[in-house]
């Protein structure tokens, strides 16, 4: 069952109704049961793994709670993190490291083989692993109280709206809410439904529509010329935004229907005027996690290196981000490229700020537009490594874009419907970004206009959305 399946449209309202009928003191256990059922319907065996990670997290946080000695507490935390990371390592990275290690041995003439182990990746493992690690660190740093209710810990790690593809939540945000387990208010239901509706629009009308074209091109790279590959490269970031951004909105909206507020994940990223701003608007839950638990401690430890310390911290943080996205060299290169972009910005920050101040550039619309376009192009280029399966494919795409011109491969339906939906998306984002006082559509004061917007978006989804089965791009993270 995925968010876009018919079963979810039946499942979710029933869950919300029963949640509100359930006594408050049982709601944690009710939602935990629902979340486990939701997970088990996809991968029943790996539910045991999720339960095990929950048990380990709960056990180690309590062990830390009973320890007075700070150093011992830190050691317990490290051991706990290692235990939590072990399943992620074995399921996601073991095969990759195995292949790389034995390839290196073969390069120096040592030929040996190990039977390949093909694990099916547990859905959501990257997400709940990071949440568990974040909780362990927060307990060690005394930023959150230790949760005594194992059901709440289980629910924190397995909550069905975000278990599959995030956002990556924090203990500090979730546990207080799980203690209250509020009843759904009319505002919660309407806000949640609106978020879900827009999320479905982004996913079905934008992401899946563009995905038809992008997949057709990137799955047949040798068959397409550079011009077509360039178009697909430019469309891919919008596809990912629609996919992950749409999914996140559905997750946030679903939780909101139950009165639970989850952290936002995207904030109109294509209006960023610098790469660092893009990364404050794109996959925010992941970046905030990496910033709090990787980048900040690293940059503090390397503070004596001044700006080069920042550069090193950035490079390492984004290399880890790349590795988190996937066990492949392409993702490592993707992370490296992001790190390079941000490092260059860090190194040139003073000069840029001075130039912007001197000519008052940040008030000029053409400067902001050029910055947005440059940022988009740089991001789209880096996403070639995120989209291609191998480095040789990525290199082929880049060389073809630079040298192989030709007629564009056109799919009329994708360009027409996809183009129209992208325009709708950008108009909405533009109004939200620059005209926050313009209450239109979903936020209109006039009830007729609001309901007209809801119905219009619903029919855009039904008439133009891709309603056949497909998967979210981030499904196997």
């Amino acid at each position, binding site marked *: 069952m995925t968010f876009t399946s*018919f079963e979810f449209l039946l499942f979710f309202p029933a869950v919300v109704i029963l949640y509100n009928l359930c006594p408050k003191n049982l709601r944690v256990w009710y939602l935990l049961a629902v979340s486990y059922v939701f997970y088990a319907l996809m991968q029943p065996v790996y539910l045991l793994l999720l339960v095990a990670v929950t048990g380990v997290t709960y056990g180690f946080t309590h062990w830390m709670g009973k320890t007075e000695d700070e150093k011992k507490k830190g050691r317990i935390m490290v051991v706990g993190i290692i235990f939590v990371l072990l399943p992620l390592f074995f399921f996601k990275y073991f095969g990759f490291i195995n292949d790389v290690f034995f390839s290196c041995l073969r390069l120096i003439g040592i030929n040996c083989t190990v039977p390949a182990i093909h694990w099916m990746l547990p859905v959501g493992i990257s997400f709940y692993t990071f949440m568990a690690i974040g909780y362990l660190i927060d307990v060690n740093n005394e930023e959150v109280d230790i949760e005594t209710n194992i059901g709440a810990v289980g629910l924190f790690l397995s909550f069905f709206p975000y278990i599959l593809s995030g956002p990556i939540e924090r203990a500090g945000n979730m546990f207080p809410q799980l203690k209250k387990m509020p009843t759904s208010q009319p505002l919660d239901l309407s806000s949640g439904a609106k978020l879900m509706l827009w999320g479905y629009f982004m996913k079905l009308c934008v992401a899946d529509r563009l995905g038809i074209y992008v997949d057709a091109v990137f799955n047949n790279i040798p*068959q397409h010329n550079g011009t077509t590959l360039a178009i697909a490269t430019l469309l891919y970031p919008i596809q990912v935004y629609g996919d992950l951004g749409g999914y996140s909105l559905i997750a946030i909206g679903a939780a909101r229907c139950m009165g639970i507020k989850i952290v936002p994940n995207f904030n109109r990223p294509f209006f960023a005027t610098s790469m660092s701003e893009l990364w404050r608007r794109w996959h925010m839950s992941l970046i905030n996690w990496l910033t709090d638990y990787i980048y900040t401690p690293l940059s503090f430890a390397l503070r004596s290196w001044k700006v080069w310390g920042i550069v090193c911290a950035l490079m390492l943080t984004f290399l880890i981000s790349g590795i988190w996205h996937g066990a492949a060299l392409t993702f490592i290169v993707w992370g490296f490229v992001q790190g390079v972009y941000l490092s260059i910005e860090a190194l040139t920050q003073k000069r840029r700020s001075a130039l912007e101040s001197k000519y008052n550039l940040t008030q000029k619309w053409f400067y902001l537009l050029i910055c947005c376009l440059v940022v988009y192009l740089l991001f789209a280029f880096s996403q070639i490594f995120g989209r291609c399966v191998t480095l040789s494919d990525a290199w082929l795409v880049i060389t073809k874009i630079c040298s192989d011109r030709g007629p564009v491969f056109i799919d009329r339906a994708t360009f027409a*419907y996809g183009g129209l939906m992208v325009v709708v998306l950008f108009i909405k984002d533009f109004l939200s970004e620059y005209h926050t006082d313009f209450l239109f559509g979903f936020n209109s004061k006039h009830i007729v206009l609001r*309901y007209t917007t809801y119905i219009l978006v*619903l029919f855009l989804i039904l*008439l133009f959305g891709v309603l056949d089965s497909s998967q979210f791009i981030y499904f196997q993270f």
Partner: protein
Amino acid sequence: MACVVAIDYLAGLFCNKIHEDAYRNSPESFFYENLLYNVRSDILIIGSSTASHHYDPLAIEDSLHLSVFNAGQDGVFFIIQNSIVNMVLDRYTPKVIIWEIGETSLSTRYDTFAHGHNEYQSLKTLFPFYETDLYAFNTVNGKDAYQKYRMMSQSYVNNSLLLANLRAIINKESIENKGYVPLDTLGYEYPSICCDEFDDPINIYKIDALNETIRRCDSLGVRLVLSSSPRLYDDKVLSSQGYMVLKRIATENDIPFVEYYSLFSDKPEYFKDVDHMNERGTRHYMHYFIPSLKQSVN
């Protein structure tokens, strides 16, 4: 909710009206509607993209002096093909049906999206016939338990059709080459032979469906010819379960199985990709296929 239902109904009326006008203006813009309502050729070619790109009706017509139509379409797999064959038989009886069929046709390979395609990915082709044709009705509802509820929404039924309808209203289109779609011969790198193995289990329901269709063709006096056109795969495909089952079915039912799977395995220049011959390859294939077809139908 009532408002949504009402608007959905009105949207459906509007879309249906547009479609009627579009079909009246340009029936050949709607391939399967045109096939089922207008085509009455002596020989019908059914299949997916391999059928569409590998069989030249004009070459077959020249030789057999019978009218031919190529009803192959990209992305249409066995379940939909089987439904189309039966829907054709409901309307008229061609003399010969050439059914392009392969090693994955009866397997479970495309029962899910695990390999990038799915049996039901072209289900929309049957939507125009859902309310009038039992085969279409059963096939559409066979997708999953909820499909019949989705079909209650007029907006869902008309999903992604607006552009095609508007184009058909503005521009009258015609089907070229009697449905045959030749692929370019030049301008790309020719593929290398593929060593993929197709070891997916067999779907027994598909075997039953094929047997039933074979019996129906026999009872109506339609000569059914199963055909496997050239591909650029390693020979081990020929010993795959899927391929062996096809041969067995053809033998048991005494119907011809014209096999040329490995005919051009040493000629990559005849292929656009490992599954599809280009125009040059098709032209050469017709030199082999047509005599075999003549033999099969006589």
